[in-house]
């Protein structure tokens, strides 16, 4: 605590943002259990918003689209044509509901980090990211087993054209890659991006606020103001990252499913 940039007055004052900012207590202490916290409420609200979104989006679909329908069709076709059909080709229809749910659920929850009232991305709590990655794992492993039976193991563990003497080396690596690394990276990529993004925003907002209200130091106040303004730019960046991560998670899931069900490997 002797770093000169942030002077402390009598040991109080500034506490830098950290992992403790991602811990939440019960939304209604002593009545509801600890795990009914803000991220959980957000996840449920996000879920409800997605349901509402698609309810309004698919309610009165017309052959000749209205202006509103154009928008929903755009979102739907973004996932349907841009992700599912591009990657899965003929099989896309079976996996489209999951990919749509995944993409919109991720997008809404990620953007919670930039919207008033929430100001916190749900998936910066790693548990939710684990949950989603686990479902994606079940989907792509399940799709592989459903199509190839136990041949799926052989298909995914023994790449074509690998000489026999390398198999003892390659098979464990392939196993690790297909069954362990993929879901873990899926979850951690999502979590880390949103966790870090939120932390950066916190640093700029909390630190900036502290400097802005610091007494008798004009330089601190000015730099605090600048940092507060800069946090808005970071928020815009986070909007982009939130959408990007939702897209990447969905695309990778589709990609994994595609490698599971593809004919020739």
């Amino acid at each position, binding site marked *: 605590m002797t770093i000169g940039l942030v002077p402390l007055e009598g040991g109080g004052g500034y506490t830098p943002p950290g*992992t403790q900012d*991602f*811990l*939440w*207590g019960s939304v209604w202490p002593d009545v509801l259990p*600890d*795990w009914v*916290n803000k*991220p*959980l409420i957000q*996840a*449920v609200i*996000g*879920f409800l918003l*997605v*349901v509402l979104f*698609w*309810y309004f*989006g*698919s309610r009165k*679909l*017309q*052959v000749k689209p209205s202006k509103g329908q154009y928008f929903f*069709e755009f979102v*739907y076709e973004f996932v*349907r044509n841009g992700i599912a059909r591009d990657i899965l080709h003929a099989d896309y*229809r079976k996996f*489209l*509901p*999951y990919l*749509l*749910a*995944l993409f*919109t*659920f991720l997008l809404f929850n990620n953007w919670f980090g930039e919207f008033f009232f929430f100001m916190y991305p749900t998936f910066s*709590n*790693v*548990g*939710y*990211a*684990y*949950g*989603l990655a*686990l*479902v994606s794992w079940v989907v792509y492993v399940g799709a592989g087993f459903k199509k190839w039976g136990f041949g799926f193991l052989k298909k995914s563990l023994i790449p074509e054209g690998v000489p026999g003497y390398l198999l003892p080396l390659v098979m464990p690596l392939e196993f690790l890659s297909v069954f362990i690394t993929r879901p873990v990276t899926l979850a*951690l990529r999502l*979590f880390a991006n949103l*966790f870090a993004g939120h932390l950066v925003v916190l640093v700029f907002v909390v630190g900036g606020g502290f400097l802005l209200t610091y007494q008798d130091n004009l330089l601190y106040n000015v730099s605090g103001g600048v940092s507060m303004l800069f946090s808005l730019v970071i928020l815009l960046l986070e909007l982009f990252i939130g959408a990007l991560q939702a897209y990447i998670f969905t695309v990778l899931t589709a990609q994994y499913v595609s490698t599971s069900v593809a004919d020739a490997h």
Partner: protein
Amino acid sequence: MGSTIWVPQNTLGPLAPHHWSEVIVGILLLLVLTLIIAKAVVPAFEKMYEERSSKIEGGMQRAAAAEAKAEAALAQYEDQLASAREEAAKIREDAKNQSAQILAEARDKATKESDRILESGRQQLAAERAQLVAQLKGEVGGMATALAGKIVGESLEDDERALRTVDRFLAELEQAGTAR
């Protein structure tokens, strides 16, 4: 706060979920959402896309059908027009023929009529003339005798002579009549 969990929070740090409920809720919400979208949203969109593409295809078919129909109607009208023209020509031809016939008949009739009138006139004339000649014959004989008696001053006793004179005169008269 991390006491509810068995994963050592101090080794995994923020990579450890704070509550297992996070994982479970994440999975449940995603599954329910997938179910809702699979049951309601995707079918609705796909149905609309199908309708749209079938409508476009149907529209194209309908347009082709309408075009074929229009062409058929045009051909029919042209047919009708051609037959109507033909008929009109035929009617004109007939009328021409008929008028020529009527004219010929009328001329024929008129000729006959005029011939008849002429003939009857001629007969009447001949009859009147014969009657006149007969009448004149009688009267002229008497008048001539009376005249001759007056001129000669004497009665012509000789009837025979007198009769001869009258006959000669009448013959001359007749000659002059036929010569005329």
